[in-house]
């Protein structure tokens, strides 16, 4: 059972564009929703995280939007740069280990 569904699988944008990655979850008991960034050959690194009592959180060029009623959350990358090219994973947890989405491979073209 895939509890966290992520889309799209891959995404190509031009420099300066705003890529949006979406995730949907099934378990309403989840109470922590992080996003991880992974570069080739490296481990995932925490990018930004949100709790369900907040509808939006911004950290630099990265924004999470959270819709509790729809059980969806998304990552927006403002003014994207070629250095943002990486694989992004959403995840969710409820005081246990994270359940990850399947990942989105983002390519930002110069």
């Amino acid at each position, binding site marked *: 059972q895939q509890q966290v569904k*992520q889309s799209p*699988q891959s995404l190509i944008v031009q420099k300066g564009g705003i890529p949006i990655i979406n995730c949907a979850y099934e378990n309403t008991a989840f109470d*922590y929703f*992080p996003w*991880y960034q992974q570069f080739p*050959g*490296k*481990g*995932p*690194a*925490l990018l930004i*995280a949100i709790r369900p009592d907040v509808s939006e959180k911004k950290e630099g060029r990265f924004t999470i939007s959270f819709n509790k009623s729809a059980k969806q959350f998304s990552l927006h990358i403002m003014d994207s740069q070629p250095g943002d090219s990486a694989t992004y*994973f959403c995840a969710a*947890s*409820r*005081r*246990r*280990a*994270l*359940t*990850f*989405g*399947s*990942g989105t491979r983002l390519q930002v073209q110069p």
Partner: protein
Amino acid sequence: IAGITQAPTSQILAAGRRMTLRCTQDMRHNAMYWYRQDLGLGLRLIHYSNTAGTTGKGEVPDGYSVSRANTDDFPLTLASAVPSQTSVYFCASSEILGREQFFGPGTRLTVL
């Protein structure tokens, strides 16, 4: 500060052999985890530990075992490796179970 170290970096293993992947953290985190990463499937939890002396099963525990004798070390053992265990394995840790996790650099394992 090293964070999380994993060894070996990569390994080619014959099917049926026993293998232990090592993971050490220096952040004094209570919780530790093992994930495997396969193309198109994201990261899947194998086993986790909330604190030294306790372990729990994740989504894909079959064929793997773990131990947590102390806070810093969390080895993952494949008792008899099979080709389907070919994957990249990541160890992670967090101060609180299920919260901000820090990942190691990974071990690429190939079982032939």
